[in-house]
């Protein structure tokens, strides 16, 4: 039976008005503006762009302001906005070898050509609260040094020269797009990488950590981690050639994984790959570890039944918008559903004679 659910309008309007007021907080404190969030909470902006799957720092900053800093809510807003945009096309694959690197490190080669460039990293900080920041934001200018512009080769190329690592041969198969077709199994690597790059950072980190703790261990080294800007080129049909339509900051992680060989592959190093919008190295490393774990089948490894090897488990639970949508819907009115459950439990109890037992006890 349908039960009337009218009568909530006034309460909802009041709740929204109060939400707006709470979002603003104490009006004696200056209001945050979008450029402040974009410039000073940049890593939150980057996460919203990566998991919202839309590169637009101003929109991500707006979403963070609107969601009161609830990043999953902000990601939800970006995903919803994204669906309203007409798609002009797809870019040519970006060339991360031509990245203008802010940061580029390797945990496997000390003396790699191009050097170890630390960039603006939290690593090597003492993780002590800096009370100076509570007072004012004045910072001295960062030191500079002469630099010669040049492409920075990927570390894996050096191992490739010796044939010690699996190749990633050039391939131009158009990738499937999970924003256009529903996610279905089996998922090829291109689809898995798309799902992982926009996957929840916490979920991806947890899975990656599980592989390090022994659930499908794959002995990962960070062969290379780089953060920087790459140009985005797209073919423009009305022009008949490709032009740069912009520039995005990406974090790329290539893992080099120990591999003793399998039924189908010789002993060599194998690779996991992470590529994420913005400066998000925790996510990029996690993505690379999970990508590598999910590749067990093509590399002829054993399925040890670890969660990180289960493509369906990983991909169907990695999206925080799907997850939170389903999780949070259970707080919405289920009066009718619950009414029927109530009837059922009463009927079962009658049948089991529970009523009599209770009466006897009284």
């Amino acid at each position, binding site marked *: 039976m349908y039960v009337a659910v009218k009568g909530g309008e006034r309460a909802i309007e009041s709740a929204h008005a109060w939400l707006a007021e709470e979002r603003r907080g104490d009006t004696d404190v200056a209001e945050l503006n979008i450029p402040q969030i974009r410039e000073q909470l940049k890593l939150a902006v980057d996460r919203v762009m990566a998991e919202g799957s839309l590169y637009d720092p101003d929109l991500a900053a707006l979403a963070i302001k609107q969601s009161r800093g609830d990043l999953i809510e902000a990601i939800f807003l970006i995903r919803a906005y994204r669906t309203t945009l007409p798609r002009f096309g797809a870019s040519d694959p970006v060339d991360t070898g031509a990245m203008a690197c802010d940061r580029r490190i390797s945990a496997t080669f000390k003396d790699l050509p191009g050097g170890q460039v630390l960039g603006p990293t939290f690593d090597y900080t003492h993780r002590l609260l800096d009370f100076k920041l509570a007072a004012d934001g004045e910072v001295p200018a960062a030191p500079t040094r002469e630099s010669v512009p040049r492409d920075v080769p990927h570390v894996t190329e050096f191992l490739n020269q010796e044939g010690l690592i699996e190749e990633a041969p050039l391939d131009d198969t158009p990738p499937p797009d*999970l924003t256009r077709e529903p996610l279905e199994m089996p998922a090829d690597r291109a689809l898995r*990488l*798309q799902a992982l*790059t926009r996957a929840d950072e916490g979920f991806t980190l947890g899975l990656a950590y599980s592989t390090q703790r022994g659930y499908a261990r794959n002995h990962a080294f960070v062969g290379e981690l780089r953060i920087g800007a790459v140009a985005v080129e797209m073919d423009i049909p009305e022009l008949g050639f490709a032009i740069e*339509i912009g520039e995005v900051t990406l974090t790329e992680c290539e893992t080099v994984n120990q591999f003793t060989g399998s039924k189908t592959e010789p002993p060599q190093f194998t690779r996991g790959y992470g590529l994420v919008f913005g400066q998000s190295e925790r996510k990029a490393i996690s993505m690379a570890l999970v990508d590598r774990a999910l590749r067990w089948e093509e590399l002829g490894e054993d399925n040890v039944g670890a969660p990180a090897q289960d493509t369906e488990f990983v991909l169907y639970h990695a999206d925080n918008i799907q997850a939170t949508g389903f999780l949070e819907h259970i707080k919405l009115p289920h009066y009718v559903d619950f009414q029927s459950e109530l009837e059922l439990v009463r009927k079962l109890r009658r049948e089991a004679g529970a009523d009599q037992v209770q009466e006897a006890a009284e």
Partner: protein
Amino acid sequence: MKDTFDENAGDKNAGRKAWMGLLAKAPEGRVATLLDAAMARPEFTWLRAPEIGSTMVRGRAGGTGAPFNIGEMTVTRCALTLPDGVVGHAYIQGRRKADAEAAALVDALMQGAAADIVRTTVLEPLEAEQTAAKTARAQKAAATKVEFFTMARGED
């Protein structure tokens, strides 16, 4: 074709490719400021009024392998015609209709008699600014490059 203002002989579209890329990445309002300082805007009619949309950005597995979708980016595009029939196009990053209009005007003007003045008053300053910004960042990165030194080496 008039769209061959390239100094590089190889690719006949190289010049236009370069300036359209420069315009796509220009900071908000910058192209309009430079253009308006240089000249009065010519009349034009819209072929396609400014429109905001997205482009799916792709990467390659392992950096060099099969392509996959990373996510979209916002893009604004438009096309216009000058009275002499020259068509200007713009595809620029972000949601910036006024900037797309200025970029398409520059693209059209670069194909006509005003090319030299537009090059020196709009494109060259824009390029210099982008190069300076890029260099400043690269120099900060260079300052964080690790200089390993070895205390004692077991070889000559």
